[in-house]
């Protein structure tokens, strides 16, 4: 992601904010769309596009769970394990997915296709136990078989062209 591309993305929304600094989150989200995480080059490009220091941009990015400062799998599977989901079997679901993918729980598969992570309440306790692929719709309530089908579908879909996490 180049500085120029980020600037072009920001140009039409710049007027919506009284202070330029508000553009840093939209810029980071946009920069993350390319590789699904924020390598140093992407942080530098965001800094240049927003006129902020790279250190500042990195300090903001490191605060938020869904801005990734380390490489992630092609698809990030977030399994909600907060109380309502726990009561309906989320820990067993996470264990099942981890065993199925060989991550043994949270982690990234050796082929880089999947990252499995715990999520804090995804706001879908009526679908518990639930998971979310990247920032897609919350899926549930899930049996272990339904989770297998989701994984199979994701394998068939292949690598996404843009990442919305």
């Amino acid at each position: 992601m180049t500085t120029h591309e980020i600037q072009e993305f920001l140009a039409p929304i710049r007027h919506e904010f009284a202070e330029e600094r508000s553009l840093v989150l939209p810029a980071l989200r946009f920069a993350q769309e390319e590789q699904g995480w924020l390598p140093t080059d992407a942080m530098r490009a965001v800094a240049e596009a927003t006129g902020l220091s790279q250190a500042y941009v990195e300090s903001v990015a490191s605060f938020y769970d869904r801005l990734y400062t380390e490489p992630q799998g092609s698809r990030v599977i977030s399994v909600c394990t907060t109380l309502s989901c726990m009561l309906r079997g989320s820990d067993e679901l996470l264990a099942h997915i981890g065993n199925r993918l060989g991550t043994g729980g949270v982690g990234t598969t050796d082929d880089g296709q999947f990252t499995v992570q715990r999520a804090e309440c995804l706001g879908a306790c009526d679908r518990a136990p639930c998971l979310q692929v990247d920032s897609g719709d919350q899926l549930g309530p899930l049996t272990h078989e339904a989770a297998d089908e989701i994984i199979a579908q994701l394998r068939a879909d292949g690598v996404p062209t843009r990442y919305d996490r």
Partner: protein
Amino acid sequence: MPILNSVYRHREFQHLGTLTGYERAGGWNGMKAALGMAPDDVLYAFHRSGLRGRGGAGFPMGRKASFLPKDTGMATYVVCNADESEPGTFKDREIIEKNPFQLIEGVAIASYAVGCKRAYIYIRGEYGHQAVILAQAIADCRAAGRLGPNAFGQGKPFDITLYRGAGAYICGEETAMLESLEGKRGQPRLKPPFPAVAGLYGSPTLINNVETLAALPPIMHRGADWYAALGPEKSPGTKIFSVSGHVLNPGNYEIIMGDTTLRELIFDMAGGLREGRELKACWPGGSSVPVLTKDHLDVPLDYESLAGVGTFLGSGGCIVMDDSGCIVRASWRLAHFYRHESCGKCTPCREGTGWLEKILERMVHGEGRMDDLDMLESLFGRIADRVLCALADGAVAPIKSALEYFRDDFVKVIEDRGSPVPEPMGVTNG
């Protein structure tokens, strides 16, 4: 049953998800009524309706709006809190997914009342699917002239910016939300000044929850008196409860405040528990409130009645656990949540939530000691009330109350060297 779908009008009318469908079902009648009144009279209507903030704190909405100073020479902002992250709460998600135009109309009405030309809807980062729906609804309103240069009449502009968070529970705290919206780490501010006086970019700012704002169109259309007459005098109106956990029909239920008991909500509306199970514990207002037991089932659901039994209505996220659950394990899971979501700014919260998690974790895993209970109790008072925001109080409340009501269970878990509910095999930590 005393269900009244005033915010959840999509449950009464089809096609509210499209602008034409919304208009056909009486959409924008509230806005029309508001535009026919002076802004101050609209503010007064908020006040008379008795509507209280639905995000958790329950502060009277009209009073909050009246705190905004006028003629400051600065812009005035409305920020809609769509950072729905309180465990057990999923009511705003349904509003955004199924009835987004009523939310937009509500934001517009509030903005007209306080003289705001640009409002922001701050939506949590994880609600990517919901953000797409809301962005489309906003675009449709712009195309139809409901938002834009002449939204409030010829030459009277108003527009809404949808701002996506990036994963942080703390951004539901209103000053942390403002920090995030200003492009900073989402950490709460010292108050005062309150956002009404110095909020977004230092300007007067009204911050309200999705459900609060979506309640405004019917209030303006049907009248503040109609709303104020629903339910008890101090807690009028409808409230959406999200019921989850060990119930047969988890879901959202919009009820008239005070007309329904906790028992009716859990057992009649949400289908009750599985055969042969009994209620063990219930967190009635999201996870940040003191827990209730089966002895509290007959409490009416309104702010005062719930406060009367020592808890809070909160966000209305009602988490139910039957007697197959372990209160120590549940408390540990909540402690983990608050430790993970503590922003780290205040030492008592940053360190204290870590200790709560650590102590409960060793109890669950069979390494608890009897004096851990004293240590927990000594921690409560050192964490709560010594910090900038309510997160720490929210971390303490469910655990402190659990220890009060279920002390025997904690003792048993320590004596038996572990929780009676086993851990699934093969899960690595993270």
